[in-house]
């Protein structure tokens, strides 16, 4: 059996969520989503399907020519199917916080800021929340600052929103009607009790809950022999750490 790195498993899990996309965009500081997008693009190519990937921190995989605003305009136009967002905190209603902890006026710990989340979360049909750390500190009952809300009133223009949340330990699906996450998959060395303990919000559990799926050999080969080198162009430290390329 192939020894699989944790990051490779997450890349493969994300890739499974992208197979129906035509255009995937990847924002700042996202080597794992970036690798997943390139992996799906490569697999699509083998099946003679066309898939575009825009990776903002790459020159080679950046499709835009209208300056830094084009990502947001393009997303608002409905031309991006999937985008990834993270969060210092993510809560059970899929609100995300990229700003800090404590009250906003007297902030305790200040983080970088909300980036483009406050628009992207509204307009991209499939937002995948991705946060490696799965702990009561990151997955909270209620975020202390809403960089972008998980849902909106009926009269708000919102074709997009949260679809999945992936962490080191688990994959959740977001139920828009119930405004609640549902646990779909857990990492192989995890168990439900521990996930419940480490998650700061309440969630549903899918009837058919499974382990995360181990990628087959073909996928692993593509990832290690091809995607690794592509990723090294724009995330050299990550590519070096995981694959030594």
């Amino acid at each position, binding site marked *: 059996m192939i020894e699989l790195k944790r990051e490779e498993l997450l890349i493969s899990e994300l890739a499974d969520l992208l197979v129906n996309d035509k255009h995937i965009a990847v924002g*700042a500081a996202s080597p794992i989503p970036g690798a997943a997008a390139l992996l799906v693009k490569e697999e699509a190519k083998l099946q003679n399907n066309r898939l575009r990937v825009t990776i903002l921190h790459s020159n080679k995989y950046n499709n835009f020519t209208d300056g830094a605003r084009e990502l947001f305009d393009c997303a608002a136009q409905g031309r991006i199917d999937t985008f990834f967002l993270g969060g210092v905190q993510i809560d059970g209603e899929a609100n995300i916080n990229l700003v800090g902890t404590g009250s906003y006026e007297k902030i305790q710990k200040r983080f970088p800021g*909300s980036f483009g989340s406050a628009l992207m979360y509204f307009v991209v049909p499939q937002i995948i929340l991705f946060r490696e750390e799965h702990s009561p500190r990151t997955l909270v009952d209620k975020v202390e600052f809403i960089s972008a809300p998980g849902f909106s009133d009926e009269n708000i223009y919102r074709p997009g929103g949260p679809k999945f949340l992936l962490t080191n330990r688990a994959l959740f699906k977001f139920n828009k009607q119930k405004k609640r996450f549902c646990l779909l998959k857990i990492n192989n060395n995890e168990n439900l009790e521990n996930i419940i303990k480490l998650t700061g919000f309440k969630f549903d559990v899918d009837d058919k809950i499974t382990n995360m799926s181990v990628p087959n050999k073909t996928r692993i080969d593509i990832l290690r022999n091809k995607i690794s080198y592509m990723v090294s162009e724009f995330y050299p430290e990550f590519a070096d750490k995981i694959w030594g390329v």
Partner: protein
Amino acid sequence: MKQFDELSLLEIVDEVKDGDLIGIPADYSGVPMEFTKELIKKGIKDLKLYCLPLTTIQGDMLIGSGCVSEVEAAAVTLGEFGLAPRFSEAVESGKIIIKDSTCPALHAQLQATEKSVPFMPLRGVIGSDIQKYRKDWQIIENPMKFSGNKNEPILLLPAVQLDILIFHAPCVDKNGNIQIGRRRELATLAHASKNVFVTTERILDIDLFDDELSAATCLPALYIDGISVVKNGAWPCALPGVYGADNDEIKKYSIAAKTQKGFEDYMKNYLSN
């Protein structure tokens, strides 16, 4: 007759006044670090940073050096080297005002000025705490009979005009046109700024407008008030297409700047080089 004013770096620094609202380019758009160094040496005060849409070491150094009273940004970060420590500390201790924003809003506010209209509408954002805390943003009900949705709340962002913009460019032609390539957010910044100065690696002996395709890569000289040749003017930041970031240096900074003392030691050395 030269078609532009070639200035010394210190002449450009002198154009920045205490209290100015200054345009700050993102790490991918040409960060004018040599200029920033001289600005800190000058002891500039009360700058308001308008970041399009974020700043990295440039903003953190200015904040740590006490040059800044206000920051409008979607993020202040050292990227893969973690939080911007002087920024985080200054916000946590209330030393600076942070006007939290989101990338498309920062673009749109400048586009309003680009068109000389008082505001620009934006979708999204409503219901976030970003919007909640921005008293200069307003929400109206969509007034249009035939576009958008009835009863839809629409966010209006005020036009923002910058006092001054400085960025670093790979090259400039003999008539003062700036080669910006795909970094067209620099055009938006320049259009919305009262004064624009550019530091550059070199001045070419050609006119980029002589060829239609190279013309398309330019920000026209008409928006530029002065240019200064400054070699390695973005170091330790990257100048895309010319040189990469000096990651060792930024990492060194990120560690030193975790404390005010460490920051001051680092800066003493940095400013004297």
